[in-house]
């Protein structure tokens, strides 16, 4: 192109030779066109030819212009030596052109790096303004070597440039080494309009950056001329200020940012922006911001990049984004290491909406374990392994067994990260397997305790016994497993075994309060058993053992006297009866308490009041407060010795009305113990009234809300749930972990909840039990205001058109059944409640409960459902030899038509009741 142009230009010049005056303008234009097109060599050749031809001032001027362009081209290509040589030649050949070539001369000198030569003209006070401006512009745009400027020998030491440069050197060193105040950076030696003004703005910007005065820093950055040398630092400083639109920095700038440690601001800014986008939950901005955040992290925190990608990936997974889109935004799939699965597991736990999420969490935890072992975060069968397995076991325990079976099939259908080395899905969802692994890895009391708590909830008693045995083998000095085994043996009537465990526990820790309490309870159970068997002499021996084993305070001494009274009654020794009765009254300080205690002993021993010569208490002789206080005293004693007492028959209404009528001045502890007794006795109205009194006192709202919740009828399931949730929130605030545990158990197995757990999973999940303060206060205010026991609304839904009578439209039917579910196994209670709501008939329900086959096992299952009086009758019947089938048939008859509390049961072979005759122990719980 250039050769062609040159040839064309020459030919054009040659053609024009013959007629110059006409052809010159065209030739000039041609040369200028070449100069503008940066074809300086062609332009120069053409200009030379033109000047050879015409040799006019015009052609000379054009030639000089072409030379100038050529020299600039050479400079542009870094050929400064050639440029200088050519310039010298031109000046030599065309001295008149020197003035015109001043600028290019200056550029040549600048390229030589000869700063002295650059600035030398500035020493001339008569220097042309244009030249001065050109030089100062060049200084502003090109001089980065302040020391060289401050030492420029072509300027006097007092020249403003030298002084200014020196001051700036010192200031730059100062602001990059330590905090410098604003007053110290006035720098009067540096003019605001001079070529070094941008340097002054720069040192102030750096000083304010370190002072964290970002707004002022930005102002100083704006004062820096964009074409100046200091402007090269502006992008880096903007990044360090956390600019949202961080420019790409060169290597030196990146090093500076990393060295100052201020790159984090940009990263934090990008992350905050991403967080805002995630709060809005719109996908395109989230993915865009994610991309920017990862990019910022790559620049200013490369060691955090992988972690950030994992976190972003998890957050997007929770938001439901497709993995592909996230992968594209964050530059690929995140690393699936231990931390990844840790995050997944926690995310699944945290966003619990269904049991499937818990299952996913378990799978993730197991995968975490495998990766953690590979990465050597911890070793197998160590404390850490045990802690992890325990956590997994507690998680698995929240999944109902029937749901776990369904989840298994789901796991098999999906791609699971489980490898062959880990637990199989069956064992992964098995709390027993996980607890076993936890306790094998890290055998300690807390883990076994947790396992035992779970095992106790299983229907098969052998599960808990096996756990206790394992515990005892692993931690031989713990008494807790022995106490459980003792209690379990006692329940199965294995008394010798029970005593053996007790002895073992005593050998380990005789002074342990739990051991002493258990011993007392076991001995008392023995005495009661002997009472029931009509063996007062053996009972008397048992009483002596009680006296010998315990330090008898007032209430325990009263218990001993009460037991002796019963012995005396069975022995028909009226004097002894009266004497011991007086002792009981004296030691308890209350006739009411004495009566309740005696009644409780009779109930526990399955004896009728008349058998122990116990006359009914004349309630009219006592005011309500006396009755309540006496009852409370007796219940406290009963609870302390493991013999929970019931509210005597027909006392409920009187006590409830006493509570409603006036302030009974009962302590919180008394109200609570009465409340538990009322719940045990299925006296819901009384329990409710006690909760009203308790909440009026204030101070124990959590426990009274718990009481209130259990007192509510089954159909008030939502209100019950609210009370339990509110109580749980209060218990958490009080750090009352025992109460919180009971509340959680109640919430998870809410027998009065008409719906299956799946229906309210979002609420019954672990995160869903927390309560907003406003809602909590609403519930508290609402419950405090409620003084009356709730009754069902008369406006029940219309029937389905059937002619059958809706059996449960009658409140009495509700009353008959409302207290049964409270003691029923949760699954059964749920079905029962649903059936009631559907309007099923009692006999249908009963047939559903009793599967059609009868026997001792089915009858024993019902023991927990029956009111104490009925239970006593059933046990008596069994003790007298009645067959379970007969008893069940009689119960059905009673439920069908009569009052269940007054039903009479078959006696089997008719025998005269002889308290002293031996009774078979079949089917007895004692």
């Amino acid at each position, binding site marked *: 192109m250039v050769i062609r142009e040159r040839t064309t230009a020459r030919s054009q010049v040659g053609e024009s030779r013959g007629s110059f005056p006409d052809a010159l303008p065209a030739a000039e234009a041609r040369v200028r066109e070449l100069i503008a097109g940066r074809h300086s060599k062609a332009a120069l050749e053409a200009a030379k030819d033109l000047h050879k031809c015409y040799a006019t001032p015009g052609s000379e001027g054009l030639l000089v212009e072409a030379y100038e362009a050529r020299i600039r081209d050479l400079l542009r290509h870094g050929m400064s030596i050639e440029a200088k040589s050519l310039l010298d030649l031109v000046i030599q050949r065309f001295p008149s052109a020197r003035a015109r070539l001043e600028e290019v001369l200056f550029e040549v000198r600048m390229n030589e790096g000869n700063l002295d030569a650059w600035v030398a003209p500035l020493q001339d006070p008569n220097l042309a303004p244009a030249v001065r401006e050109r030089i100062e512009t060049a200084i502003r745009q090109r001089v980065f070597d302040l020391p060289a400027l401050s030492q420029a020998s072509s300027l006097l030491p007092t020249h403003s440039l030298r002084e200014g440069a020196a001051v700036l050197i010192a200031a730059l060193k100062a602001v990059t080494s330590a905090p410098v105040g604003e007053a110290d950076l006035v720098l009067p030696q540096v003019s605001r309009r001079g070529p070094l003004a941008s340097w002054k703005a720069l040192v102030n910007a750096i000083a304010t950056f370190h002072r964290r005065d970002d707004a002022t820093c930005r102002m100083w950055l704006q004062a820096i001329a964009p074409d100046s040398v200091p402007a090269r630092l502006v992008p880096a400083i903007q990044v360090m200020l956390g600019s949202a639109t961080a420019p790409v920095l060169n290597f*030196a700038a990146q090093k500076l940012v990393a060295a100052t440690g201020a790159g984090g601001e940009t*990263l934090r800014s990008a992350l905050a922006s991403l967080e805002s986008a995630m709060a809005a939950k719109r996908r395109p901005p989230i993915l865009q911001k994610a991309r920017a955040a990862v990019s910022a992290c790559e620049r200013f925190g490369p060691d955090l990049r992988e972690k950030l990608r994992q976190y972003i990936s998890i957050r997007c997974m929770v938001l439901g984004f497709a993995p592909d889109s996230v992968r594209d935004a964050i530059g690929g799939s995140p690393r699936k290491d231990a931390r990844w699965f840790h995050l997944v597991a926690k995310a699944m736990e945290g966003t619990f909406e269904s049991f499937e999420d818990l299952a996913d969490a378990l799978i993730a935890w197991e995968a975490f374990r495998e990766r953690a072992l590979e990465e050597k975060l911890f070793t197998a069968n160590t404390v850490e392994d045990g802690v992890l397995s325990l956590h997994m076991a507690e998680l698995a325990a929240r999944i109902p067994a029937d749901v776990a079976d369904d989840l298994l099939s789901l796991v098999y259908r999906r791609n699971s990260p489980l490898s062959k080395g880990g637990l199989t899905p069956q064992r992964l969802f098995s709390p027993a397997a996980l607890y076993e692994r936890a306790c094998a890895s890290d055998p300690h009391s807390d883990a076994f305790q947790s396992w035992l708590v779970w095992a106790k909830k299983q229907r098969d008693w052998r599960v808990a016994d096996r756990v206790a045995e394992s515990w005892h083998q692993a931690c031989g000095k713990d008494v807790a497993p022995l106490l459980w085994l003792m209690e379990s043996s006692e329940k199965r009537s294995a008394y010798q075994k029970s005593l053996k465990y007790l002895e073992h526990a005593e050998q380990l820790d005789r002074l342990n309060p739990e051991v002493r309490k258990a011993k007392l309870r076991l001995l008392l159970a023995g005495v009661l058993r002997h009472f029931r068997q009509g063996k007062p002499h053996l009972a008397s021996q048992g009483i002596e053992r009680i006296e010998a084993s315990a330090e008898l305070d007032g209430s325990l001494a009263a218990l001993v006297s009460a037991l002796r009274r019963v012995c005396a009654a069975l022995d028909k020794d009226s004097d002894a009866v009266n004497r011991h009765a007086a002792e009981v009254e004296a030691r308890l300080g209350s006739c009411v308490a004495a009566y309740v205690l005696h009644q409780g002993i009779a109930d526990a021993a399955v004896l009728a009041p008349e058998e122990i010569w116990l006359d009914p208490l004349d309630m009219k002789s006592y005011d309500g407060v006396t009755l309540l206080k006496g009852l409370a005293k007796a219940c406290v004693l009963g609870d302390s010795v493991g013999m929970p007492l019931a509210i005597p028959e027909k006392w409920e209404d009187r006590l409830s009305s006493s509570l409603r009528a006036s302030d009974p001045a009962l302590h919180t502890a008394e109200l609570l113990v009465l409340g538990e007794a009322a719940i045990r006795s299925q006296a819901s109205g009384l329990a409710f009234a006690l909760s009203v009194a308790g909440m009026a006192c204030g101070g124990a709202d959590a426990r009274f809300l718990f009481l209130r919740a259990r007192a509510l009828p089954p159909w008030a399931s939502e209100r019950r749930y609210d009370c339990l949730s509110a109580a749980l929130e209060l218990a958490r605030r009080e750090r009352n972990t025992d109460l919180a545990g009971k509340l959680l158990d109640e919430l998870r197995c809410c027998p009065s909840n008409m719906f299956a757990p799946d229906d309210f999973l979002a609420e019954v999940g672990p995160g869903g039990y927390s309560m907003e303060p406003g809602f909590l206060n609403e519930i508290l205010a609402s419950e405090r205001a409620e003084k009356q026991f709730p009754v069902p609304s008369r406006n029940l839904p219309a029937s389905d058109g059937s002619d059958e009578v809706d059996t449960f439209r009658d409140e009495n039917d509700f009353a008959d059944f409302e207290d049964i579910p409270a003691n029923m196994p949760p699954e059964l209670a749920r079905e029962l409640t649903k059936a009631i709501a559907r309007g099923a008939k009692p006999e249908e329900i009963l047939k559903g409960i009793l599967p059609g086959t009868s026997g001792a096992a089915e009858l024993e299952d019902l023991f927990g459902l029956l009111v104490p009086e009925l239970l006593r009758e059933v046990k008596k019947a069994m003790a007298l030899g009645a067959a379970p089938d007969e008893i069940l048939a009689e119960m059905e008859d009673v439920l069908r038509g009569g009052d269940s509390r007054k039903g009479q049961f078959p006696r089997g072979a008719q025998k005269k009741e002889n308290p002293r005759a031996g009774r078979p122990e079949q089917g007895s719980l004692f």
Partner: protein
Amino acid sequence: MQKSNLSLDPRIVLGVAEDATDEQIRAAYLNKLKQFPPDRSPAEFEQVRDAYEFLRDRRQRFRHFLISIDPLAPLDTVFGSGSSERKFVGPEPWLAVLKEK
């Protein structure tokens, strides 16, 4: 398991990393004791002591590690809680940028 009344992460209280060893934890504890002796800073001393008691228990420490991670925590607090200091690095790194066009 021993319950902790710590309101702050015990690691933050003692100033130790997530993967700190027993020796590092103990060293940090002793260091904090010098800063907050019980007679002069009783509240801080108690917090430091509780944090140490918590972390020296290997079970509690690992359990805390398992449950304290929050994948849904704000990203700017997870990743941006590091040092926001602006170090003084001297004039050379600044001048190095100026030398590049």
